[in-house]
């Protein structure tokens, strides 16, 4: 599964520009589903037919990034975030653009004092991207206003841990793909959506469940962590302790029926798990849950450190156990 994770995380597709990642996912999953569709907004919806309850899995395929707002006379590029990008993460890091152009990020400062001030308060107003161009004309051959950009890092294997950009939420995509690959049979009618534009407001998930009208939704996404030096003291999430079953975050309270089902399945099959109460953030699950008359929805989360940076770290065992948990859940006969 590491090959799959490598392929997914190294594909560059920020929110609104999901074409590339959609192709990669489709190629991976096509042999394992009965039918698929790309909806009007660009969500990839796959279907593995069954006679039982309709269950919708969700993982979002976009990643955070930025968009070009202005290119100056000297060829320096100004950007705005697409999704939750901390500008401090970008400084002096390599970045890439849709066109394949690469560059790095610099910061303004006319005096040493001002530079020191700016370092303390890095904003999108005092940083710029340098692609080595000497003029606007030269820059515009590689990068245009409105073009999207983002992180460019490769997957690194760090013992049991994996580090890459866009683990949020390519690791969720990997889990859903692997689950469907391993799901030889299910008494349920299984759909999975690889959703667009989660990072800019759960856009894909606002419509994905509308046509399907599932009986239950399960989003697969990353969650925070509390196991690093002076880490969040009210966050009881530890990498390697198992996939997290969400109770709540800022955007939703997971439906009790789904939480109970996931916990029961984990316990019956001796899959390690942890309960998740996240003090911030939200997932596609929040939108799926309030679709139409309401859809009981839960979230299986992969504990992930340094979310929304170039160096997101997950534990491979949590990933494998998430696949196991979903597989056994889908195999269950539902009332």
């Amino acid at each position, binding site marked *: 599964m590491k090959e799959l994770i490598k392929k997914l995380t190294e594909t560059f597709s920020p929110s609104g520009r999901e074409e590339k990642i959609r192709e990669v996912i489709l190629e991976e999953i096509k042999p394992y589903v009965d039918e698929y569709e790309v909806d009007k907004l660009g969500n990839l919806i796959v279907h593995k037919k069954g006679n039982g309850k309709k269950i919708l899995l969700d993982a979002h395929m976009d990643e955070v990034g930025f968009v070009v707002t202005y290119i100056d006379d000297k060829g320096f590029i100004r950007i705005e975030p697409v999704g939750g990008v901390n500008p401090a993460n970008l400084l002096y890091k390599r970045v890439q653009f849709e066109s394949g152009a690469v560059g790095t990020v610099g910061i303004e400062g006319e005096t040493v004092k001002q530079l020191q001030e700016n370092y303390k308060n890095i904003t999108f107003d005092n940083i710029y991207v340098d692609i080595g161009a000497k003029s606007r004309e030269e820059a515009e051959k590689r990068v245009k206003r409105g073009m999207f950009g983002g992180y460019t890092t490769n997957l690194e294997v760090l013992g049991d841990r994996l580090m890459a950009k866009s683990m949020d939420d390519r690791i969720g995509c990997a889990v859903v793909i692997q689950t469907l690959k391993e799901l030889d049979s299910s008494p349920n009618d299984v759909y999975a959506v690889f959703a667009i534009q989660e990072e800019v407001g759960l856009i894909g998930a606002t419509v994905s469940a509308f046509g399907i009208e599932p009986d239950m939704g399960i989003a697969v996404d990353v969650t925070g962590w*509390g196991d690093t030096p002076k880490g969040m*003291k*009210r966050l009881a999430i530890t990498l390697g302790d198992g996939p997290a079953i969400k109770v709540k975050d800022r955007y939703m*309270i997971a*439906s009790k029926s789904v939480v109970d089902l996931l916990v029961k399945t984990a316990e019956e099959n001796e899959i390690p798990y942890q309960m998740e*109460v996240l003090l911030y953030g939200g997932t596609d699950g929040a939108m799926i849950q*309030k679709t*139409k008359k309401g859809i009981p929805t839960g979230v299986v989360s992969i504990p992930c450190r340094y979310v929304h940076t170039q160096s997101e770290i997950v534990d491979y065992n949590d990933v494998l156990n998430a696949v196991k948990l979903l597989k056994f859940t889908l195999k269950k006969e539902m009332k």
Partner: protein
Amino acid sequence: MEDIELLDKLTSTPGVSGSEEKVADVIIEEIKGLCDEYHTTPLGSVIALKKSTSGRAKGKIEISAHMDEIGFVVAKIEEGGYLRLATVGGVDPKILSSQEVTIISHTGREYKGVIGALAPHLQTEKERKEQPSHDTVFVDVIGLSEDEVRANIRVGDTVTMHAPILRLMKNRIVGKSLDDRICVLANIKLLRELNKMIFDWDVYVVFSSQEEIGSPGARTATYEIEPDVGIAIDVTIGDIHGVKEKLPKLGKGPVLGLGPTCSPKIAGDIKKIAKEINVPLQLEASVRTGTDADSMFLVGKGVPIAVLSIPLRHMHTTVELIDMDDVNNLVRLLVEYIKQLDKTYEEAFL
């Protein structure tokens, strides 16, 4: 059941957003004989339908009161078995120190706890000046060792504030979760009245889930109902000592919301009818209503909405204070509005 007795039961039953089953049970027990049909939605709201008794059902009206309350879930179990909390809805950390709480375990059992406080003797100069925050709040579970805590309580278990039972002084009531159990009571009283009268429209009385975290309960219930008129009944901030701003007064009648999302037609009809039947009515302007109505408004092709509120002091504390006269007047107003729906809408089409 007497109003106060029922209200006591409603407010002492836990129903933190997302865990409304127990309070829903109390409500269902009360309304099942008062409506034609009822059911619980996938998100846990209760919808009761009282069909038109004139047989002229020309439209559908939804009246929604939320049954959830603010509270907490366990965020982390710390060394010693102390609990850290995550809030559900808007809880002010300043009111928490020395509160009693109830922990509702996933096993179904309940445990008592207190939100502890550092003795003044032990506080440093700096600590004395510091404001409490949710990062400093912890629960001391009473009578359980750390091992027992870990065996019986897990991250995600619900925690509610445990307040003394309702107290009644003249028409005033003090208690916890009067936001919005007082309107749950109003909705039940409304159903009782509907059983005694002739009216033209189908009335959907909704007890919604999860208002305190953004109203997915009302939104999905409204999608199902597709009402022609939607009214949220909730509480609003009543006049309070030390606030110069002109706030609605307790005992001076229900409060009609006016704002860009509120239907001028419904508001106009309500104002007119209040005058006709001599119900005092206060007005309140707001850009967003901050109630279920904000969600109901945007469902499907859109729903014309109104908000009627009970003025309440000390909101989101365990000593919420209301005047029962306002509740009775709210019910009278809703009854008359429902009675006249056919007439007001016929006139509107002329």
